[in-house]
């Protein structure tokens, strides 16, 4: 294969995401424990470039005088753990269920897809609310909850691809040569299902980081004093007019994370679709002449 030029549309969002992850998990440790300590004399101090800023708190402080830089980074731990963890869980479940539904078909297919349809009919936030009220809101609970909220999409994507691939002539030919189901899945089905699910995974990370933020904002996330982007925003909302920086930094982090996750998903999809090597000229309309 020819070497491609470095694809910035893929590597830029991936790089930014990596920086965010490393900063959130390593950053607070490097900054030291004083960032999490309350300093009531330094309440709502502005960022370093504004007058009234406090030394050693470059992004300002919150209503308890805690350093916004280390608060924001630490808050990312929860949001990212929940986002990445739940997206991974959802895709793993979707992969298994989609394979079973698409490959076995029949009763299995009907059962799994019926559950998926019914699942989508439930108002997810209301259920999450009830569940958190009953079992609490530790990180594992949130991951499990959001996994249950996200498995339907990867299941459907997987099932659709499996159904298409297993009726392809080259798969039928392999079966006709004596291939086992395991061989067909491993050799022909998975190579098409995995890249598609990587795309789904990427988009799901973005969506779940937002949902985690919303849950925390509503007070359904992890309990204070553990920060998460959602509950920092929630805490900072009363001071929005006088101290915008309390809300701005975690909000910015959510926006950056979600945009990068989505951009990564788009880039992966583009790569996956052209990577299969099939250029369908009949659908490749030139948008300049055929909008």
């Amino acid at each position, binding site marked *: 294969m020819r070497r491609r030029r470095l694809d910035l549309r893929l590597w830029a969002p991936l790089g930014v995401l990596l920086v965010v992850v490393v900063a959130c998990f390593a950053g607070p440790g490097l900054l030291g424990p004083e960032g999490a300590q309350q300093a009531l004399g330094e309440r709502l101090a502005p960022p370093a470039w504004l007058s009234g800023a406090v030394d050693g708190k470059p992004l300002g402080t919150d209503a308890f005088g805690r350093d916004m830089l280390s608060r924001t980074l630490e808050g990312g731990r929860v949001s990212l753990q929940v986002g990445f963890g739940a997206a991974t869980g959802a895709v793993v479940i979707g992969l298994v269920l989609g394979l079973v539904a698409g490959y076995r078909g029949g009763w299995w297919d009907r059962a799994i897809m019926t559950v998926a349809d019914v699942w989508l009919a439930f108002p997810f936030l209301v259920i999450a609310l009830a569940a958190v009220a009953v079992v609490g809101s530790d990180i594992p609970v949130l991951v499990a909850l959001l996994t249950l909220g996200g498995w339907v999409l990867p299941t459907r994507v997987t099932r659709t691809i499996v159904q298409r691939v297993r009726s*392809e*002539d080259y798969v039928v*030919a392999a079966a006709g040569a*004596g291939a*086992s189901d395991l061989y067909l899945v491993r050799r022909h089905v998975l190579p098409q299902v995995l890249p598609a699910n990587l795309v789904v995974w990427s988009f799901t990370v973005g969506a779940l980081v937002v949902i985690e933020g919303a849950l925390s904002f509503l007070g359904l996330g992890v309990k204070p004093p553990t920060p998460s982007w959602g509950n920092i925003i929630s805490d900072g909302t009363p001071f929005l007019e006088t101290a915008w920086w309390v809300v701005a930094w975690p909000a910015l982090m959510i926006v950056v994370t979600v945009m990068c996750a989505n951009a990564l998903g788009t880039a992966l999809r583009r790569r996956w679709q052209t990577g299969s*090597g099939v*250029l369908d000229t009949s659908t490749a309309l030139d948008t300049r002449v055929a909008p």
Partner: protein
Amino acid sequence: MTPVIELSELAKQYALPGGAGRLTAVDGVSLSVGAGETYALVGESGCGKSTLARMAAMLVARDSGEVRWSGQPVSGMSRRALRKVRDHTQIVFQDPAAALSPRLTVTQAIEEPLHIRGRTGSRSVAELLDAVGLDASMGARYPRELSGGQRQRVVVARALALDPKLLVLDEPVASLDVSVQAQVLNLLADLQEAHGLAYLLIAHDLAVVSSVADRIGVMYLGRIVEEGPAEEIVTRPRHPYTQMLIASVPAFAPGQRTVRRTVLGDPPSPTERLAGCAFASRCASATAVCREEAPAARAVGSVVVRCHHPSGADEAAERLG
């Protein structure tokens, strides 16, 4: 000698979506193909010939009837046992672009059957490529880098990898350019001679079939309506449907006029069960008995025909009488 493949009273129905009845694809078909023989199955789209091809290759399960490969009844086998005898019959599909994975190189595609059966290295890919008239350098290419004719040669090479006794050829040249069709047909003829292969050739085009087939079976709505030696079927068709198929082959010489027997309407829906002959609704010589009673198979000369009024039957009777 035991036929390479024997189908007896094979039948297959499909349930229509939403419980809207059942579609009869194959309705009691029996045929057999001997070693080195080409049996061509012709008929129009939707007559069930592709389903029959897949049933012969044991890729579609039958509802009733039996499939025997060189005398071995394979239709009752478990999936696991069947996998071990699958080298007997291999299938070649109509569209070689769909029959090759875009992710596998030519070499990987041809090696796949050997790999599946744990017989890698028992045959060299170069030898198989050579057998289908492709250069060994093609092995590193992907299907998208090949022409339609080259792809179909790769598909044939893959089918040959397991040393089958029978190739089921499901419209092997229908998707190819006319100039390439003859090449592929010639290749198939050469391979048959070299390996003593039996072919079950599925086609909708009598022109393609008449030059290569030893015997022809004409299929209409899931049944074989006429069967016999190729020359006999092409030159003296007994069944009105066969006559219609032959008349629809365009004349090659300018000025040569053939009497066109026009096709009357469309075939009846395969979801309905008809009392009489399935062709009666389109047949110019249909009588009352045709609409009431399904015609049984009867021998007329060297052919077997399912028709109440086969042409040539009366003359034969006269000659005898």
